[in-house]
């Protein structure tokens, strides 16, 4: 009898410890709040999403308020259609807000930053953001820079003459 009790105690302790560890892993190391199924969907159309990924954060003033849930290509306009789910607590975004694809740090991932507008009408579920700004693609930037540098150089030469 004494031995069975020790076995039960040992097994119980082990299972409790294991479940506590699982609980720790699922709640303390992950960002659970991003998995709320509640929320309203906003749609943004971008010329180029760059390296934006599904589940990238959507921020207002640097604070994450939602996540990107889907990225598709509109087959008619040939633009990227990004659907993002916003936490229902942030339901007072003006309907003239604009969305830009930004990069966190040098090697950080890309996210969507929403800059609130001044309208007194708020965005609702399924609304499309009117103003969007595409991701900055490094090659395009370098290309523009080179063209401008080339023009600048020729202008200076022209001035000399």
């Amino acid at each position: 009898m004494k031995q069975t009790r020790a076995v039960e105690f040992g097994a119980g302790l082990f299972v409790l410890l294991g479940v506590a560890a699982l609980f720790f892993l699922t709640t303390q190391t992950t960002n659970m709040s991003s998995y709320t199924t509640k929320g309203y969907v906003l749609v943004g159309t971008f010329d180029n999403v760059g390296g934006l990924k599904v589940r990238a954060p959507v921020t207002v003033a640097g604070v994450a308020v939602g996540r990107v849930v889907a990225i598709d290509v509109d087959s008619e306009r040939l633009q990227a259609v990004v659907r993002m789910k916003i936490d229902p607590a942030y339901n007072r975004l003006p309907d003239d807000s604009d969305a830009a694809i930004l990069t966190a740090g040098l090697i950080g991932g890309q996210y969507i930053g929403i800059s609130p507008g001044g309208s007194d009408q708020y965005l609702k579920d399924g609304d499309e953001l009117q103003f969007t700004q595409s991701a900055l693609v490094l090659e395009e930037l370098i290309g523009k820079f080179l063209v401008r540098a080339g023009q600048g150089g020729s202008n200076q030469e022209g001035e000399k003459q």
Partner: protein
Amino acid sequence: MSRDDIVDPLRSFVQTFGASQLFLARLITYTPRALLRPSLILEQIFATGSMSLIIIMISGLFVGMVLGLQGYDSLSRFGAEDSLGAVAALSLFRELGPVVTALLFAGRAGTALASEIGLMRATDQISALEMMAIDPIRRVAVPRFIGGAISMPLLAAVFSTIGIFGAWLVGVRLMGVDEGAFWGSIRQQVDLYDDVLSGVAKTVVFGVVASFLAVFEGYNSIPTAEGVSRATTRTVVITAIAVLVLDFVLTAWFLDKDTLG
């Protein structure tokens, strides 16, 4: 060398494989009824899980501490020490936790299961059960199989959790990584489904495979001293190979799902 020299080993391999699949099917069909007798399973959870706890905790702590050292050294070359927490957490949850735990589990619990059942066969205890019209698979094999399959995911969770604290010990306390950056990077990078739950899914598969192989090898061992020792060795070797091969398959599968969204 005659044709039979090549065909016979092949045939016996396929035959053993087929027998093992039938055995697994029997274990699984008996599982629901066996769950009605939890005391037998509890005993096995104690034998496989509680008794493996010490080795799992010590290994987890040191694997985590090594991750802290190695991660800090590699990351500081890129000036990215602040991501140490995320690197340690992702490697532990996705790979090291499930795989190292499964290998240790095979060495600590699998061998015990195989040699115990093997000795039961060698000392005719299995035949004695059959004489008493007790199905030895139901009475001996199934509770051990279920107990091992339940213990393994819990052991892996303990391993990963202790590992994180090992990495924290070295990274934050010894190397001076910022405490907030360490935990913040973990929270930011670790995904519940893609990282934690895919790791747990791996441990469930490994637990079923490791317990099944141990029980199968023990149950089908040759009833001699040599036979039992061979069954024990085979358990570790085959489990290690099966776990590593399955790990590749499962990882490829999970990553494929990730990239497809």
